[in-house]
């Protein structure tokens, strides 16, 4: 074997030898609260008045339908509603960059190995939990907390991004919709 190839392969094989069957360590802070917890909780939580638990739960489900979510599960006595949706995650700017990379790569003389555009964002899976419970502080008041996360997949169904959704405006929009739905629910009944 060529000396250069030997030099290149030896560390690789050595790493493989050491890596062997190593197990992944649990991240140290996996179940510790982050410093931003209180802030995130306040972004995700609102107090709302409603005539009954059924009224606010009905309004919540209607809002999820308005936002084109599928309701996966409901546990009424715990006020837990789990919902999800799969939607488009296309980013035209990102796609243009990846196509450009493919072109550059092909121009470099290896057209068979150029497949950057398969890494384009294709779809996002959003999961959402709404917990609607009678407030512990005041009767007639309900505490509503929403948490959302998403996974973004590429065209080959590989996960590109796993993240909590933390943007305050996203949560605010949900609560605005819920207030409106609650108003409609009350005025219609």
């Amino acid at each position, binding site marked *: 074997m060529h000396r250069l190839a030997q030099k290149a392969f030896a560390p690789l*094989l050595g790493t493989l*030898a050491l890596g062997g069957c190593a197990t992944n360590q649990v991240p140290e802070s996996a179940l510790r609260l982050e410093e931003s917890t209180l802030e995130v909780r306040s972004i995700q939580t609102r107090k709302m008045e409603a005539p009954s638990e059924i009224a606010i739960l009905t309004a919540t489900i209607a809002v999820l339908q308005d936002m084109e979510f599928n309701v996966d599960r409901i546990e009424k006595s715990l006020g837990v509603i789990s919902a999800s949706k799969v939607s488009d995650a296309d980013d035209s700017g990102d796609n243009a960059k990846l196509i450009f990379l493919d072109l550059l790569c092909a121009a470099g003389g290896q057209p068979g190995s150029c497949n950057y555009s398969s890494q384009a964002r294709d779809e996002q899976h959003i999961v959402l*939990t709404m917990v609607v419970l009678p407030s512990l502080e005041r009767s007639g008041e309900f505490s509503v907390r929403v948490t959302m996360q998403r996974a973004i997949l590429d065209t080959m169904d590989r996960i590109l991004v796993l993240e909590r959704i933390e943007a305050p405006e996203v949560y605010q929009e949900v609560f605005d919709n819920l207030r409106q739905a609650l108003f409609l629910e009350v005025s219609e009944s």
Partner: protein
Amino acid sequence: MMLRIAVILALISMAGCATTTPVDVSGSKSQLESRQIQTRQYDTLDKALTMRSVIATLQDLGFTIDQADSELGTISATRYHQYTMRMTVTVVQRGEERVSVRANARIGEKAVTDAATYQDFFVVLDKAMFLTLQGVD
């Protein structure tokens, strides 16, 4: 020479990995050992309020709830954050005034088996239980 040693080491390490995938049903720790590190007993709140605290804890930790069953006291949750973490927490009434809370977690295809991570979870739950006890949402 160096290359030969590296090749031998790599082959040995690969031989160490099983060539057939064993069926992992029983888990990696003994039943008793797992239960001990994953369980805490509480005598402060009833089952319903304990479940409420567990849900708040999971939400604080960034999980979304996949499903919850108040009768069986089971809550399953998932967190997407760099990696996928799944938890199942069960709340069981033990006698008149005690509830036991058991949590188990997996990150990707690995079970979380270290006591410290479960301890972290129960520290957060303790705080949530305290807030619920004080009547704070």
